[in-house]
């Protein structure tokens, strides 16, 4: 009898950089998929040995430092870009990556992030936008949609009280030191591939010394949204992407 196992071709599996440890994500959370994007991109670019990751406070911290096999540090809330600045200045050949959520980068750390752009730092930022504060139980984030109910906007986010959703890559694209700014999702296989390409481009800009790269990942938070995992995919397509359009907002081959 023919040994069928020799016909079986492995087409996918755990990325080489994905450690055996468990992530700390809820069912239906997209951060696990984004962890895979980060792993695969770092592997494909061959920069794992010189990678230093900085994870912000929030759910972004729950997975990356414990599940990706590169050097990591956790950061105080919102301060990853300042810490990354020093590391990159001291080790210019390192690949320095910050992973920050919408509260971490968009609220408490917006000034810190913007000032890293003002200084024209040569870094990469993965910006995780799930429109709520997941870790603390689903409160309003700067990226919460208008009308969206959270535990601190029980009647829905209202412009008069809470202002407008924050568009980070569009904002970053206005800064001269930024080489790459894009928004992507991982809620479909095709978008997963596009997300990989975006992050790869952003990191390549850093390695080539061109400038700052930022990639936003619009992603699901089932408990924060009060939706089932599959319903979240529709919510992303129908609501999130309406406010947060996908695409590249900047892609420069050189910054002056």
């Amino acid at each position, binding site marked *: 009898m023919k040994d069928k196992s020799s016909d079986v071709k492995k087409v996918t599996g755990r990325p080489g950089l994905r450690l055996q440890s468990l992530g700390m994500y809820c069912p239906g959370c997209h951060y696990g998929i984004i962890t895979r994007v980060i792993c695969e991109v770092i592997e494909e670019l061959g920069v794992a*040995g010189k990678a*230093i990751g900085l994870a912000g406070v929030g759910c972004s911290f729950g997975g990356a430092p414990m599940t990706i096999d590169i050097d990591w*540090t956790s950061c105080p809330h919102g301060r990853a870009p300042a810490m990354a600045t020093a*590391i990159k200045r001291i080790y210019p050949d*390192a690949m320095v990556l910050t992973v920050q959520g919408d509260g971490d980068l968009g609220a408490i750390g917006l000034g810190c992030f913007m000032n890293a752009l003002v200084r024209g730092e040569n870094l990469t930022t993965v910006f995780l936008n799930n429109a709520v504060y997941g870790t603390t139980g689903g409160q309003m984030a700067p990226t919460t949609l208008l009308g969206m109910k959270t535990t601190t906007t029980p009647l829905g986010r209202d412009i008069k009280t809470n202002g407008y959703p924050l568009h980070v890559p569009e904002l970053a694209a206005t800064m001269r030191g930024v080489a790459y700014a894009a928004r992507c999702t991982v809620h479909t296989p095709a978008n997963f591939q596009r997300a990989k390409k975006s992050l790869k481009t952003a990191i390549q800009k850093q390695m080539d010394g061109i400038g700052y790269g930022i990639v936003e990942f619009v992603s699901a938070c089932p408990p924060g949204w009060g939706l089932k995992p599959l319903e979240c995919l529709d919510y992303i397509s129908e609501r999130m992407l309406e406010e947060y359009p996908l695409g590249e907002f900047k892609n420069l081959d050189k910054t002056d």
Partner: protein
Amino acid sequence: MSERILVSGNNAVARGAIQAGCKYFFGYPITPQSEIPEYMSKELPKIGGIYVQSESESGSIYMVYGGGLTGKRIMTSTSSPGLSLMAEGMSYLAEQEIPAVIVDVVRMGPGIGTGGQGAQTDYLQVTKGCGHGGYHAIVLAPASGQEIFDLMQLAFFLADKYRGPVMVITDFILGQTEEPIELRTLDFGPLPEKEWALTGKEKRGGNRVTHVAAFFTYQGILNYHMKLIEKYAEIKRAEVRYEKYLADDCDLLIVAYGSSARIARGAVDMGRAKGFKLGLFRPITLWPFPVEAIAEGASKAGRVLVVEDSQGQLVEDVEASVKGRVPVHLLGMWGRHNVGGGGIIHPERVIEEVEKLNER
């Protein structure tokens, strides 16, 4: 003998740091310490170092945190309001055990205070852990240009030895006064390898993660805190520093640190000439505080006068050390010849206070 030069205390901070091998400075301008970042921005690039001007003291302290993670010697300097902004980061540096040197050139507070005025109004802030959660930083309080230069070198050594933030505290008077210093290199002995530093794993194989993963288990939390508690106990045993001047044969012990100790020393000489048996006890480490030595000196003298240019902060630690065994008096900032701009406590004013106490 090494070269001698005439420089300000702020300049001595910067030169002392470079002497200690510090090549990375992250800072933000604030009076009266701006000469330190200015000097660093000029000198560090010449030796392959880096100066980064942050957007705030919050930015500075996190650049220090990131820079410290690489294992290199790094520092920042600021003045009082800036130190408040750094308080959060100080707590993280202590928690994550990141070596760093932070210099506070104190200006009169609270609030925005007055940058052009000397004062010693940050004592409580620097000695009690200015950030949250309960931690300590070693605090060195030099009283001259030479001592600033020397203690900067010691600060980097202690930061590496005990893995944590070390503070050097000066003030407007010390920072702006020019004094001769000898550019000598101090050797404090060997240090352990920084096996925790982030460099990218290719330099060693196997990744490193510098967060307190211990916090995810009960025993981990306990072990972590016991380790810090033991470290602080060891620092208290090994690193207490102070200077005594005529303190073993006096009937009034003056306790003062930093610029006030310079003034008090003058007062001791002045008083001795008048026949008053004065002595000076000068804490050099404000944390760890020389509790036992002060208690002993106070008991011998029978009376204590604390001289500090503040509302009365150091006096709390002196009282806690003396434990009510002898009376502790205070001459605070109200003893200035002019409470406003440029006012200082003159030695004559200290003697006046001594005469008042003698009449009691």
